[in-house]
């Protein structure tokens, strides 16, 4: 029969195709390797440096390499390597948690707005715009200042200011996809609104949201660094921004105390961005021909 000329080969799933496309982007693969190393370092590191990173271990301002302290010590004689490793865990956790939170809020609001349209959309999008016009750093500073500086409040503060982009992307994708025929076909097969929103439309809207979420982890880490540089972070927990912030007065005498955590932030955020970029290429069928 003429409509059955296709070979009955084993179907390759969209996931497999995406992985293939991702592997073609060398920068993204390298970045993924780097990122994996950073994550492993953050997980394993505290076992290598089991002591409290706030402990004074050697003379202040020892340059890197001295007495076996590979990153040297800071102005209070604390081991910088231990602080970086412990800080990595905090920075990555806050980055992931804040990104997760903003993706969760963003998808919920964007999906409801894009699916139901009408007054629901009006209300939710005005709400989103309200958050969008708030100066983000100022608003998160207010949250941290009001509710106290702990990891949870910092995470919430970052999440609360960065979900708007996800909400808008999700809404835009929902507006496009809800008009497609397969949504009507699913509806005519008895699918309910929840199923349509999260079982039919959302999986098709996922690629740009996934990319945005990946990039958001990077932004959240930067944001956390910014807040803790300003001292708005849990003083009992090391984070990269906090190391930079507390050593900033000594940048001329002991530039490594600022440079090394700065580099850590830079490399991590760059790696995340490159991975996000690679995901974008891999998930966007229009770019696949490149």
């Amino acid at each position, binding site marked *: 029969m003429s409509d059955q000329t296709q070979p*009955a080969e084993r179907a390759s799933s969209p996931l497999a195709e995406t992985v293939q496309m991702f592997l073609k982007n060398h920068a993204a693969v390298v970045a993924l390797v780097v990122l994996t190393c950073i994550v492993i370092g953050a997980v394993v590191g505290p076992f290598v440096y089991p002591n409290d990173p706030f402990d004074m271990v050697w003379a202040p301002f020892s340059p890197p390499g001295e007495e076996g302290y590979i990153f040297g010590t800071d102005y209070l004689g604390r081991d910088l390597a231990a602080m970086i490793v412990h800080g990595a865990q905090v920075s990555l956790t806050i980055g992931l948690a804040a990104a997760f939170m903003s993706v969760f809020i963003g998808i919920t609001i964007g999906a409801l707005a894009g699916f139901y349209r009408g007054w629901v959309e009006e209300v939710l999008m005005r709400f989103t715009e309200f958050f969008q016009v708030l100066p983000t750093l100022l608003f998160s500073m207010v949250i941290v200042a009001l509710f106290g500086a702990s990891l949870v409040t910092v995470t919430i503060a970052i999440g609360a200011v960065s979900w708007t982009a996800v909400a808008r992307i999700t809404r835009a994708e929902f507006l496009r996809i809800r008009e497609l025929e*397969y949504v009507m*076909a699913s509806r005519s097969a008895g699918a309910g609104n929840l199923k349509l929103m999260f079982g039919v439309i959302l999986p098709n809207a996922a690629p740009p949201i996934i990319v945005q979420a990946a990039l958001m982890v990077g932004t959240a880490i930067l944001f956390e660094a910014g807040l803790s540089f300003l001292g708005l972070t849990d003083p009992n927990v090391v984070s990269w921004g906090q190391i930079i912030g507390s050593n900033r007065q000594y940048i001329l005498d002991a530039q490594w105390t600022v440079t090394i955590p700065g580099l850590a932030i830079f490399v991590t955020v760059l790696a995340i961005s490159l991975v996000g970029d690679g995901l974008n290429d891999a998930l966007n069928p229009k770019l696949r021909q490149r």
Partner: protein
Amino acid sequence: MPLLSVQNLRVELKTRDGIFPVIDDVSFTLDEGENLAIVGESGCGKSMTALALMGLVPHPVGRLAAGQILFADEDLAQANETRMRSLRGNEISMIFQEPMTSLNPVYTVGEQIAEVLRRHQGLGDKAAWAQAVDLLDAVGIPNARTRAEAYPHQMSGGQRQRVMIAIALACRPKILIADEPTTALDVTVQAQIFDLLHELREQTGTAMILITHDMGVVAEMAERMIVMYAGRRVEDGPVADVIATPRHPYTRGLISCVPHLTETLTDERPQLTEIPGIVPSLKTFGQDNCLFAERCAHASDQCQSGRPQDVVMGTQRVACWHAETIA
């Protein structure tokens, strides 16, 4: 008693210029196992009729304003969303015009069939999958077991429409609505799909509402037909009678557009005629006159002054002021 009885259905669309009836006082019945065709040009309200039966009139632009849709003593026009959801895909199914876009690209076709079975028949994962494979086999997909794991983009248009049919018939519905099921397919595949629909209908006894603009398809597939124009039913009757003696000028126009229905090959063929003009805009729908008048060769003052009433002529019903005189 008919399986489905639609009484005085009226669906209104809200536009910038006001509210207009896209379906205006349409009534028809469908018997068990019967094959009914709804015919008309684009924009005549055929697809909207189908959506109204499914309870899927686009909200909030459209509204089911009046009328009854009686399905087994239950008025679907009054049924709530939960009830309609349990009917859709279960008792009443629909297949769409565009097989290329009516399957969800992120799930395998087997999963999409299995999902309907799980939802309506409460089957477990394994049972639903096994039945999905059987259904794919029944709609003529070769190697159903492996092809069930294929994604829609790995299938041809004809195969996808077969999958759509498998989804629609998965729960053995009483009514299958086919909205131009082959318009997007090429001719040889069209024939295969119609053969398949024929065959499956014979096996399952499903009644079918076939929406089309193709008179050839009607002649081949349906037993009874309704001709719609500008949201109104202008003629209905058994397909053979309507094609042999079309009473409404619009029906005649539609039939004379198609070559092989009226002439055999040996006859000297007259030139194919077209119906002059286009379907009027939605703005004029619902006026108290004959909406076909401006395209009609037989139009008179009477046609402009009032909406024609149904005239029964043998087995046919016609809404035309001049039905008797022009016959």
